[in-house]
C-alpha cells in the first residue's frame, strides 16, 4: 500500500477516535481507559508479522516472540480486567429482584 493512502488511513482513524468518545459518564472512565488500553495491544499483529517474516533468523524470532508476549499480556490482561470491572456494574439489576 502506498504511503499516501496509509496517511489517509491514519488521519481517518484519528478522526474516528475523536468522534467515538463524546460524553462518557465518570463511572466509566477507568473501564474505558482499560478497554482502550487492551486494544492498543493490537501491535501483536506487528509482532506476528515479524515472526512470520523472520525466516531462519533466530534473534529476530526471539525478539518477535517476546514482543508478541508483551502485546498479548496487554491484550488478554486488559480485556479480562475490564470485564471484571464491568461485571460489577451489571450485577446490580439482577440482585435487586
Amino acid at each position, binding site marked *: 500500500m502506498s504511503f499516501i493512502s496509509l496517511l489517509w488511513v491514519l488521519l481517518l482513524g484519528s478522526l474516528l477516535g*475523536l468522534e467515538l468518545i463524546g460524553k462518557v459518564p465518570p463511572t466509566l472512565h477507568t473501564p474505558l481507559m482499560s478497554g482502550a488500553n487492551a486494544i492498543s495491544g493490537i501491535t501483536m499483529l506487528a509482532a506476528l508479522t515479524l515472526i512470520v517474516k523472520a525466516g531462519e533468523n533466530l*534473534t529476530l524470532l526471539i525478539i518477535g516472540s517476546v514482543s508478541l508476549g508483551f502485546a498479548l499480556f496487554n491484550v488478554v490482561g486488559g480485556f479480562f480486567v475490564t470485564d471484571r470491572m464491568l461485571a460489577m456494574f451489571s450485577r446490580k439489576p439482577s440482585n435487586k429482584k
Partner: protein
Amino acid sequence: MNLPEIINFVIDLLAVLLLALGIKGLSKVKSARDANRLAAFAMLLSVLGLLSYYLGTSGIAIQSWIWIIIGSIIGSCFGAILAKKVPMTAMPETVALFNGCGGMSSLLVALGVAIFPISSSLENLDFFKSLINDVSISVSIFVGAITFTGSIVAMAKLQGWLSTPGWTQSKVRHFVNIVFAVASLIAFFDLINGNTSSIWLLVIVSSLLGIGVTLPIGGADMPVVISLLNSYSGIAAAAAGFVVDSQLLIVAGAMVGAAGLILTQVMCKGMNRSLVSVLFGGSLSAQSTASSGSGEYTNITSCSVEECALTLEAANKVIIVPGYGLAVAQAQHTLREVTKKLEQNGIEVVYAIHPVAGRMPGHMNVLLAEADVPYEQLKEMDLVNPDFPATDVVLVLGANDVVNPQAKNDTSSPLYGMPVLDVQEARTVFVIKRGMSAGYSGIKNDLFDMPNTSMVFGDAKKVLNDLIGELKDLGVGEK
C-alpha cells in the same frame, strides 16, 4: 488482488468496525460489558485474519509457529492470571503495567525490523521509501520507550515503591528532560542518515525521557498521566503499523490514540487541571507550600465512635463521601454493612461520588459496586451538591481534597476552582481519618476547622467495625 488478500481485507474491515463499535459501546453503562467482549472478539478475529493471510500466501514456517505459540502462551497466561488476581484497589497501577507492556511490544517490533530489515521491505527500496521506513521505526521506538518507562514509573509511584525525589521538583528537571529530548532528536537524524547503531542511543534516551517526565508528577495527577500514556501506546501501535505496512494497526492505533487524548482531556476537566500543568507543573504540594502551607489547624474537634453512632442513629438523611483512604483500608464491605444497618432503620443513605474520587475517575464506583452498593445510591457531584443543606450527617471516609471548601472560597489556594462536594453545608460532618496529614495536594483542609465538623481518628476499617458494634448496642437495624 488475489483471494487471500481479499479475505484479509474483509476481515480487517470487519475488525475495525467491531473495534470502533466496541470503543463506542464502552462509553455507555448499559452496553459497556458487551462492547468490551466485542472488542476482544475483534482482536481475535484480526489475528485469525492475519494468520490465514500468511497461510494462504507465503505460508508459515514451523519455527515461526513454535515461537508464535511460545510467545502467546506465556503472554496470555501472565496477563490472565494478573487480571484475575489483582485487587480492585490496585486497578490504576494494573492498567499502567498493561499499558507499558503494549508500548514495549511496539518498541521491540521496530527494533527487530531496524536491526534485521525484513525481506519484503528491502524490495525496491528507493530513498523516499527508506526514509518513511526509518521515520516510522524511530517514532515507534521513541513513543514505545516513553510509554514503557513512563508507565512503569507511574505504576511504581501508585504502588508506593517510588516517591517523588526532591530534585525532580526543581527547575533542573526541565533542563535534564530537554537534554534527553535533544539527544533523541540527534539519534533520530543520525538514524535517517543511515547510521543504524544510533538506534540504541534512541532507545536509551527515550527511555530516560519517559522516566524524567513521569517522575516529577504527583500522585494525584497519575490517572491523567496513565490515560495520556495509554494514548501514546496507541500512537506507538500506529507507528508500528507503518513499519510493517498494516492498515488495521494504523487505524486501531490511531483510534486508541485519539480516544485516549479525549479521555485525558475529560479527566483533566474533572480535576480542574490543564494538561500542560499536569505535565510540566510538578506536583501540587510543591507549588502550594508558599501559598497556603502556612495554615495551622486551630479548631479541631475530635470525637469518639460512640458519639458518631448516636448522631447517626438520630439522623434522617446521611450522605457518605468515600475517598481513596476507604479503598486503601479495603473498608468498602464494612461500610456497606454500616449503611445496611442505617437503611434498615429507615435512614436515607446516599453515596456522593466526586468525579475523581479514588485514584482514577470511576475507580470509586467500581470499588463500591464490588461491595454490592446499589447503583442508584451512587450520586454524582452535581446531583448531590444541592442535597447537602438538607442532610443531617455527612460521613467523610478517607477523602480530603475533594471536600476542601478552599476550592470555593480561597482564591489564593492552588485548589481554587476545583469542583468540590459542599459537605460543610450539612448539619454535622464526621471525618474519619487516620491523622491530620494533608491530602494528595498537601494542602490544609479548611473543613476540619469548621464548627460542625468532628474528626474521628483511626483506620477507616477499624472505625467502621467499631461503628457497627456501637450501632448494634443502640439497637439500630434490628427488628
